[in-house]
């Protein structure tokens, strides 16, 4: 009911040209951007897509050390059985809810970085996610992509998050990423259509947050005419799939965006883990599979790298409510035609856990970021993560 009303409104607000574009199956940014000052993304420009899994995804039931006897003995109530596994080495298997990622791995398009976290991992969701998104162990509040954005000339398209609230990684010291959502872009109508753009200019008397509010208004107007028509009218299926499909469409349309983010919550599986995690992983896998299919039909499929990560993995030993409590390291997955597939880093041993029964850390996530900054964003890692130089390249 709400959606019908909403769709009608959205439908009405497009002008003739926008409507045509929305109905076209082959959109290009060039066709939309005729009057815009922002050009399309130059050919062969690398693009990063972050997929953030909130809540702490259980790495051991994602990439499974299925032949390790500790795996079965420590978590017999949630260990995956052989029929729930897609082995890819004699020691490791994907959860069978990841058929697309498994197939991409077989095509050498998936890098699995093992044992990823940082020194003395925090078991707090919020501290750990803050560390991952800021790339700082010292409580820096700006996000790592936000600091990269700070270095670029302002443009509403450089970095775009999908959803309503800006992820911490996308807030810089001076600039904030733009946002777009699968529900579409509706510009104000009526008198407001001409009045409200006047509010989109920072004023000398603004406090910084007022200036940021003004910029967000300007960004809505500058992204609407170009991105709005690229958003499907009636998306279906799980949200993460809708979001990644929209990102893929925008990439194919040559939108000048270097970094995207989508996210999915509810990985905090303290109870009933198998059912909950499997259903979440199924959504992620289908979304990644569809994303790769859509971009392979466009001209940029070799330029895109997807990183799938969470704030921590989970305890090796399960609890009595068929779940797992907070843990430490977990694999990070990097997917893309340009990624050199395979295993990176050392697997953390299941028989040498820390004092809390958690996995050792064998790879620092900042090394993974270092590789992405170097290979994808062409930026020296120490410009973004001060005094950090280690780079783990998967390209």
């Amino acid at each position: 009911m709400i959606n019908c009303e909403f769709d009608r409104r959205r439908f009405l607000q497009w002008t003739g040209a926008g409507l045509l574009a929305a109905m076209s199956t082959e959109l290009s940014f060039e066709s939309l951007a005729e009057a815009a000052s922002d050009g399309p993304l130059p050919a062969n420009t690398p693009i990063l897509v972050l997929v953030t899994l909130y809540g702490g995804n259980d790495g051991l039931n994602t990439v499974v050390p299925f032949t390790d006897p500790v795996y079965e003995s420590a978590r017999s109530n949630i260990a995956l059985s052989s029929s729930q596994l897609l082995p890819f080495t004699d020691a490791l298997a994907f959860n069978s809810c990841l058929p697309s990622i498994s197939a991409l791995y077989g095509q050498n398009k998936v890098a699995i970085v093992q044992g990823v976290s940082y020194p003395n991992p925090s078991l707090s969701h919020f501290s750990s996610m803050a560390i991952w998104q800021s790339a700082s162990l010292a409580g820096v509040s700006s996000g790592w992509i936000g600091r990269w954005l700070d270095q670029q000339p302002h443009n509403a398209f450089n970095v775009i998050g999908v959803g309503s609230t800006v992820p911490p990684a996308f807030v810089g010291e001076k600039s904030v990423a733009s946002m777009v959502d699968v529900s579409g872009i509706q510009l104000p109508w009526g008198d407001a259509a001409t009045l409200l753009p006047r509010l989109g200019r920072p004023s000398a008397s603004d406090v910084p947050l007022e200036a940021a509010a003004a910029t967000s208004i300007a960004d809505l107007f500058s992204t609407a005419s170009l991105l709005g028509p690229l958003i499907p009218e009636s998306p279906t299926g799980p949200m993460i799939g809708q979001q990644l499909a929209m990102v893929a469409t925008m990439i194919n349309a040559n939108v000048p965006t270097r970094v995207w983010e989508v996210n999915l919550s509810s990985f905090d599986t303290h109870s009933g883990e198998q059912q909950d995690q499997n259903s979440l992983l199924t959504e992620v896998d289908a979304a990644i599979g569809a994303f790769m299919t859509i971009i392979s039909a466009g001209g940029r499929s070799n330029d895109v790298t997807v990183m799938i990560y969470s704030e921590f993995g989970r305890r090796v030993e399960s609890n009595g409510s068929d779940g797992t409590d907070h843990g430490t390291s977990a694999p990070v997955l990097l997917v893309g035609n340009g990624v050199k597939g395979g295993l990176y880093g050392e697997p953390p041993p299941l028989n040498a856990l820390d004092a809390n029964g958690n996995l050792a850390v064998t790879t620092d996530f900042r090394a993974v970021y270092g590789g992405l900054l170097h290979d994808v964003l062409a930026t020296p890692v120490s410009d973004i993560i001060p005094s950090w130089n280690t780079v783990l390249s998967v390209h």
Partner: protein
Amino acid sequence: MLEHGRADPGLDSVAPLKLADLGPFPEGDAAAATAFWNRIEEDSSRLVMWWLDRMAASHYPLTERMTWFWHGHWATSISAVSYPLTMQKQNNTLRTHALANFKDMAKAMVVDGAFNVWLNNDENYIESPNENMARELMELMTLGVNRFTQHDVTEAARALTGYTTDQSNGQVTLDPKQHFSGPLTILGATSRMNAESLASLVVSKSQNARFIADRLWFRFVSGSTSAPASLARSFATRDTSSLVSALVHSAAWTSPANALVKSPVEWFVGACRALRVRPSKLNAGDTQWELSQMGQLPFNPPNVGGWTYGQAWLSPVAFQYRFELAQAIVAKGDLAPLSVATSKRVQACADWLGIADWSRRTASALAAAGPAPADVALVALLSPEYMVSA
């Protein structure tokens, strides 16, 4: 200024909400299941609009404002709890204790059904405890991160074993057979413990005063500066009204150096109050859709850490829904304060909404809105100055 317990004719005008216990999910009966989910959806909507009405209607809004603060603090989502009645019971508990003693609030919340379901403490068994509620109780609700050890978490989880919740009505009971009854050592104290005594213990720690003072500061004063250490002294007895009173009488409260982005609900309720609009007079489906698209629907915090803050609310996506909400509020609003000569309208609008000074940008947009009071109100509600409390 703390009006707790005072009669409130504004609240009296909001009809009490009486939700039924919908009982267990009707397994195996498709028609009954559909009816069940429809009823859940309908009751959820009534619950949200009932609370928004209270926030907008109260003549002494501090109790509702603090209930809202505590909702974000004990951030429990109906997405896992499912039952509106169970959420409403928690809401009433938060309201009862909103300006009273925090120790009593904590003791009530650890046996609150919605909170227990949300943090999986309806499934916490003696043989292999579930740590979720123990950790979040200490990290997010009472002490703060890094003020306890993993050992404290493990032991606190055992203090919380054996509780079960009747999810449809929030009734929590303790099964002694599943409850660990031996001595536990938590934060240096050793004794037998259950949920209430654990809550008393953690709240008695001095870190609790600092933590709650910091959280209040974070939500009411500044997301980027820290509370002065002295603020925690006002919470020595854990009396929330004393802490709030100290905060509003501090120099920081009115300092223009401290700016906050109004959260979507704070912005919405403020606009409804200024324009004398009862939220339930708006289209309930549209209102909730727009708030949820802005990222903040009451009873639906995104995770146990509560809602985001600051720049995260300032996204182009949020602005398009903010516009729709503002449009709806203005359409139903009382614009009498703008019935002044056009030349005086820009200033009248600032006085009306409590804005110290319009920027040149906004003043010129307001002037351009010129003759139409509805346009003036719309521009004012959507101005950066009104989105931010500076």
